[in-house]
């Protein structure tokens, strides 16, 4: 099931991360603060420091294999390179910019400033992505949801997020088994058949979901559900080292900004 691999692996790595037992709110605040800093500072050196720190934390402390970690950058890299090129390079009908290539009637050109801007943007985005991956690869989605509760998000949103997280997997498993069953009956032979099978599976997923919703509701009622999903959260206190690391990292960034 190649298609479901992406989501499954990020979540699975988060669940086995070495940083799993660190307070989730701490990780959320840390990564968000870092993202904001990277964007606000807008300096290549800050972006590089963040990229390095977030990667080291994810690989060394989180024990995510380097190869896997690098693999996760493939998709954002592709997007970044394309958008950076779009910013650094322009097209015109006359000669302009610091460099240009003539292609028939049009000129593809760029400027020194454009290239520098491109690099700045590229590393800024990469730094932000690395910080986001630090969070995603160290905190299972369910925990992020529960930490958001602490930030006083409305209960209904928290409950919805929680159920969506759970049901994505239920639905994917159902879809995967239907797909396998259809494949074993030659349901994916040729384009036309594939389209038909896809439609049939979509339709029955809807029916199955409705039925499952009924079964879930019964099971909830049976365990005394009264309109609120209550779970016991295990407290994971933030320790002194973590607070020091937090302060230390931002002091370092402040120092670098002051120096440059």
């Amino acid at each position, binding site marked *: 099931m190649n298609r479901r691999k992406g989501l499954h692996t990020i*979540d699975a790595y988060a669940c086995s991360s070495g940083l799993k037992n660190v307070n989730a709110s701490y990780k959320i605040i840390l990564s968000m603060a870092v993202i904001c800093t990277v964007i606000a500072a807008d300096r290549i050196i800050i972006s590089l420091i963040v990229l390095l720190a977030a990667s080291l934390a994810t690989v060394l402390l989180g024990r995510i294999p380097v190869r896997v970690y690098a693999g996760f950058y493939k998709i954002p890299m592709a997007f970044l390179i394309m958008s950076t090129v779009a910013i650094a390079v322009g097209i015109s009908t006359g000669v302009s910019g610091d460099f240009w290539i003539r292609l028939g009637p049009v000129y593809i050109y760029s400027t020194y400033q454009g290239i520098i801007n491109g690099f700045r943007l590229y590393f800024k985005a990469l730094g932000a992505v690395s910080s986001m991956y630090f969070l995603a690869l160290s905190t*299972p989605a369910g925990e992020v949801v529960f930490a958001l509760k602490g930030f006083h998000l409305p209960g209904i949103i928290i409950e919805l997020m929680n159920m969506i*997280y759970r049901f994505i997997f*239920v639905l994917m498993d159902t879809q995967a088994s239907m797909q396998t069953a259809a494949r074993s009956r030659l349901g994916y032979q040729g384009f036309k058949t594939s389209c038909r099978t896809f439609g049939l599976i979509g339709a029955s997923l809807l029916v199955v979901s409705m039925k499952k919703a009924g079964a879930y509701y*019964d099971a909830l009622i*049976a365990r*005394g559900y009264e309109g609120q999903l*209550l779970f016991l959260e295990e407290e994971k206190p933030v320790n002194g080292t973590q607070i020091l690391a937090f302060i230390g990292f931002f002091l370092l960034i402040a120092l670098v900004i002051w120096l440059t």
Partner: protein
Amino acid sequence: MIIKDIILETDKISYSYDTDKMALDSISLQIHKGDKLAVLGSNGAGKSTCFLTLNGVLQPDEGKILYHGKEMTGKNLNELRKNVGIVFQEADSQIIASTVFQEISFGPMNLRLSKEEVKRRVLEAMESMSLTDLKDRPPHYLSGGEKKRVTIADILAMEPEIIIFDEPTASLDPVNVEMFKGVLDKMAELGKTLLISTHDVDFAFQWAERALVFSHGKVIGEGPVEEIFQNEELLREADLRKPVILEVYESLVKHGIVEKGTCLPRDHRGIDELLGGI
């Protein structure tokens, strides 16, 4: 036989999902304290519907449910939900939370217990179902047997007086079935009242003391398992087969190896003792 206290009984309850077919048709049954009750019957005979009414999820269209002699109506249905726990057939339709720990805490949290008490119960339930190592695991990374154990722990943590299992052995491998039997023995020791619906007549014969037989929304037989499984007509009507052990015993009797009227063996050890005694 010692007369035990009746803790839960139904008085002619009926229920229908739609108008033309009765899912439950005037069912009267009694559950005694410490019962080990097997609920038998073919698919669609009304077992699951009956369980949902016993737990208060469904309210019968007609008839009464009495818990400790008190009639359960709309207002005190929560008392039923607190004291009667159901382990559903499909684990995936019961698990709601995103980690095992949270999942098991759901029931006790709904009982509005203190956090310490919830934690104690969750840890205890995880311990007895050997789930402690899987505490932080999301449910979708568990195997079928593990999921089943989580759903049993869910109910154990609520500490109900009566526990209902809806076809618990259907999705378990032999190792997990053995483990499940161990759990049942432990719960019986704790004085829990247990109801199990099953198609596995050999398991029912071996484990249960009493049996209820459902057919087309009615209870067509009720009594000690030995009597139920020796009632050929009843078995035919309910589409049940005889337990293998009982068949072996009967052919031993037929061929004069074992005398009629000796104590009925419940499992292979019983047969062994019987033959060893000759």
